[in-house]
């Protein structure tokens, strides 16, 4: 398969357009194998309080080959801009990485992001030197505002986080993609590789997947399948899709078909 065009985020260049989350895996071994099979180069992690007086559990950072992956700490669980800014600062201290997947999510049922809080937190974090990748609803006006604020990407959702319902926001995604000046990473809700392919075919620059891989019967096999879906989608986008038309259009020439006499036409009238 020919190499695809590289993706540049925050001044760094990547050959993979598949970002992976590290949540929900059964164990670190499966997670590592899935990361490997996906070919990903950017992986998200979360920040949580340590359980005091409960030492001994192996840390995620010990399980990751940090030389291979750009870490992308998230602010998952933060309900306000202030919480998200604080968690980003803790994440930077914990990882030494100034990238942050910004999530400001006040709504526990649908996990929908707060656009106002996200923009406010993004402005603060960009000002403090972070490379900010905000998670948002596919809102083109908000996306442009986040670009102007200096965000490195915009990451619109496909459907609710962890739902596996696929790209339900395709029409809105088109408006976010139209005129975007930073990479658009479709994040959340993708369930199968064809969902990823669909996003890339539409012109999204990358996708971020976690649950669809971690909760597959075979996470390593699904990670590989997503890598193929992403490659197919990007290759198709670059190749340029055909124009859609309302009706059918024969693929074979209509002239010169060796026809039998048409039984509907009387013998006397046949040529």
């Amino acid at each position, binding site marked *: 398969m020919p190499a695809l065009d590289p993706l540049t985020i925050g001044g760094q260049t990547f050959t993979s357009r598949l970002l992976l989350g*590290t*949540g929900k895996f059964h164990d670190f071994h499966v997670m590592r194998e899935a990361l490997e099979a996906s070919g990903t180069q950017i992986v998200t*992690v979360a920040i*949580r309080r340590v359980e*005091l007086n409960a030492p001994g559990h192996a840390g*995620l950072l010990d399980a990751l080959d940090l030389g291979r992956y750009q870490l992308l700490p998230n602010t998952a669980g933060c309900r306000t801009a202030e919480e998200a800014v604080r968690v980003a600062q803790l994440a930077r*201290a914990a990882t030494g990485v100034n990238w942050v997947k910004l999530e400001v999510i006040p709504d526990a049922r649908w996990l929908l992001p707060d656009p106002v809080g996200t923009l406010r937190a993004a402005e603060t974090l960009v000002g403090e030197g972070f490379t900010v990748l905000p998670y948002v609803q596919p809102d083109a006006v908000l996306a442009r505002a986040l670009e102007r604020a200096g965000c490195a990407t915009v990451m619109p959702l496909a459907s609710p*986080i962890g739902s596996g319902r696929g790209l339900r926001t395709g029409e809105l995604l088109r408006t976010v993609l139209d005129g975007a000046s930073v990479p658009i990473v479709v994040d959340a809700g993708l369930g199968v590789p064809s969902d990823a392919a669909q996003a890339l075919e539409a012109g999204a620059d990358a996708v971020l997947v976690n*649950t669809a891989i971690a909760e597959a019967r075979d996470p390593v096999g699904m990670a590989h399948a997503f890598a193929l879906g992403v490659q197919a989608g990007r290759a198709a986008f670059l190749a340029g899709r055909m124009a859609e038309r309302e009706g059918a259009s024969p693929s074979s020439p209509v002239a010169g078909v060796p026809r039998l006499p048409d039984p509907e036409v009387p013998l006397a009238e046949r040529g």
Partner: protein
Amino acid sequence: MQVNGQPHPHREGLTLHALLRELNVQPERVAVAVGDDFYPGARVPDRPLEDHDTVEIVRIIGGG
């Protein structure tokens, strides 16, 4: 004093290093904030802690 959202007894002369030892936390695996000061685990200073301080000790886990 608050540590990870819970009240924690403060004593005169308590330092950050002593607190981490007390809590059985290996500093190199964590990040620590005292108020608005953020420290990578490997570079946590042995600063004195005050009764009104808010301490956060966090680590990296899997997430999406």
